[in-house]
């Protein structure tokens, strides 16, 4: 037996193409996902140098950031349209497979990769998008890259990467009833801050993580970047394997069984060591709501908004003040007393079928509060179709939600789905930065259940107090 290794080291070691003193490792990339916003300059770079795409079959493109979620083919914004048209031109010219706006597999890049089985344990996965960390849920090493690196991967199928330090985020015990993966990751970031993961790849371990579904693990890994880590992953196990069985691009039949056996071997070895470790108890976690302008500014639903006077440092004090001003909130105000005007259920964090199902359970036969405009944006066309097959669209529409086509939508408000200045949104996305959902928009990050509950009440409420139907 060799030295006990983490899943991160195992994947790394299998992908090093070249090592040289004084340089990072040259790492092979198994899957390169591409979208319209961060790729045009990369394709243009190839064109200027007369270069080709080395592995079109390890590359997959879709349109998500700009796509309208209503009237799909009426793209009013000329510049958006041009960017989408350009992706089509680039994919045609360089032979890259594309799920364009009318393709049945179109959707948010981090939703469709797993859904199609392109995302698999042990793969190295990159995309010109920081939430590429999502794919880590499968025990893949997946991280975001910039456009120069997109060009580099297109041309060489590799990236230069310093071997990362490893960080074990261990979540002990069980999550309480009604507590979701979103609450867990918000609580982790709330406790340890927005940069505790900088320079590391996180492996999430512990009982609470093992008990999560693949959807839950994707929600957790998705927000690794909000903790500063470029990548976050979970060792593959039976849950992972069962999720992938039968997916379109996963190995089939006997090949699948063989692959599954190898995937299991990837899990971190007993006794493997990490460069750092933090621990947290799942039991202590309540439903979370962010109150400020970064994801660490979050509190349990039962708590009051912080007072800058209680800050431990001058810079914290300034940050809190600044955030309260932007968010138009009062110090010491209970978060449950804050009225909202918008609800967004969607994004690569929380727009999968399971997310929509759980939100729909909270909605039941209740109605959206008259002061609230609420939209549901499925993560992919596949999710949309599946949701409609089981009647989720009816539950939402009957309650007064808008039921949209797939895309990033109000997560970053690039496609025209925006929150107006000075208005407040309960959002299932991952970033509550200033202006993220529109200039002057005030974003509160929550789980799909909490968002659904807020849509109905018009305020943030503890979802555990809403009548949860017994199955």
């Amino acid at each position: 037996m060799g030295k006990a290794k983490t899943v991160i080291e195992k994947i790394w070691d299998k992908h090093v193409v070249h090592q040289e003193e004084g340089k990072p490792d040259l790492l092979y990339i198994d899957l390169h996902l591409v979208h319209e916003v961060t790729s045009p300059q990369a394709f243009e770079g190839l064109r200027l140098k007369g270069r080709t795409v080395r592995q079109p079959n390890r590359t997959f493109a879709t349109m998500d950031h700009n796509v309208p979620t209503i009237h799909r083919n009426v793209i009013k914004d000329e510049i958006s349209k041009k960017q989408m048209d350009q992706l089509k031109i680039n994919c045609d010219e360089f032979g890259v497979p594309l799920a364009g706006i009318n393709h049945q597999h179109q959707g948010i890049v981090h939703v469709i990769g797993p859904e199609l089985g392109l995302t698999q344990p042990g793969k190295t996965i990159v995309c010109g998008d920081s939430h590429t960390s999502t794919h880590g849920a499968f025990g893949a090493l997946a991280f975001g890259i910039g456009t120069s690196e997109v060009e580099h991967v297109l041309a060489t199928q590799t990236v230069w990467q310093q071997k990362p330090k490893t960080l074990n985020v261990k979540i002990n015990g069980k999550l309480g009833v009604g507590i979701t993966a979103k609450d867990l990751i918000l609580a982790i970031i709330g406790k340890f801050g927005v940069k505790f993961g900088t320079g590391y790849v996180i492996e999430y371990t512990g009982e609470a993580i093992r008990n999560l579904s693949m959807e839950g693990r994707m929600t957790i890994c998705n927000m690794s970047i909000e903790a500063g880590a470029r990548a976050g992953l979970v060792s593959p196990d039976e849950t992972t394997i069962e999720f992938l069985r039968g997916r379109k691009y996963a190995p089939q039949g006997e090949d699948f069984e063989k692959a599954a056996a190898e995937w299991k071997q990837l899990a971190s070895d007993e006794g493997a060591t990490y460069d750092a470790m933090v621990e947290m108890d799942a039991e202590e976690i309540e439903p979370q709501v962010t109150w400020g302008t970064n994801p660490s500014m979050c509190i349990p639903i039962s708590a009051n908004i912080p007072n800058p006077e209680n800050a431990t440092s001058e810079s914290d004090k300034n940050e809190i003040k600044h955030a309260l001003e932007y968010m138009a909130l009062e110090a010491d105000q209970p978060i449950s007393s804050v009225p909202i005007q918008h609800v967004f259920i969607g994004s690569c964090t929380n727009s999968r079928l399971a997310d929509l199902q759980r939100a729909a359970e909270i909605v039941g036969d209740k109605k959206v509060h008259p002061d609230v405009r609420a939209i549901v944006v499925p993560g992919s066309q596949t999710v949309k179709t599946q949701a409609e097959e089981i009647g989720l669209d009816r539950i939402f529409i009957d309650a007064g939600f808008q039921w949209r086509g797939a895309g990033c939508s109000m997560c970053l408000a690039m496609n025209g789905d925006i929150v107006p200045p000075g208005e407040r949104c309960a959002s299932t996305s991952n970033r509550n930065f200033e202006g993220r959902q529109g200039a002057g928009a005030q974003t509160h990050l929550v789980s799909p259940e909490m968002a659904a509950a807020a849509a109905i009440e018009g305020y943030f409420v503890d979802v555990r107090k809403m009548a949860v139907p017994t199955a």
Partner: protein
Amino acid sequence: MEPIRTHTGLVYPLNRANVDTDQIIPKQFLKRISRQGFGEFLFYNWRYDEKDQLRPDFSLNKPKYKNASILVAGDNFGCGSSREHAPWALQDFGFKVIIAPSFADIFYNNCTKNGILPVRLTDEEAQQLITNAESKEYKLTVDLELKKVYDSEGFEASFDLPQYQREMLLNGWDEIAVTLTNADKIDQFEEKHVVYPKTITN
């Protein structure tokens, strides 16, 4: 890309921590398909009001910082999205060096791919530079060969960065061309490395 060895320039202080890439360049400007012309949209929501008019009270709009080429900011600069439009906007505006106590990983990397030098100093050092630049017209020199930052008044600090990134910046290399000198190694690797699916049928 342009090599960078030493740079002397005017300092612009941005005394905020966790400046994210949505702040550096908001999403409505990410729709362009070229690399140029992002500078006018830099820090858009801080520099412009709701009517798209310049806010004269925002520091970067003040005439004294007009020619600034070194930005000094607080902790965790460039967090958030991977958009390379952020360094493109900073560069197009005229910034060649960004100094902060810490940077988000992807942003740091993106800077070095574009010939922008990211410099990590300690909290105290960065704070001192911010104080200096807030109180007067303040110039700094950054020397990448010596890995030092200094002014004409006796301030001096050392910084570090990975050797590879230092060389790339010093020489302004085309990284793809460098990598392709290892093309045979990539070929050999691919021969024995199995990836599913073999083809994507779309």
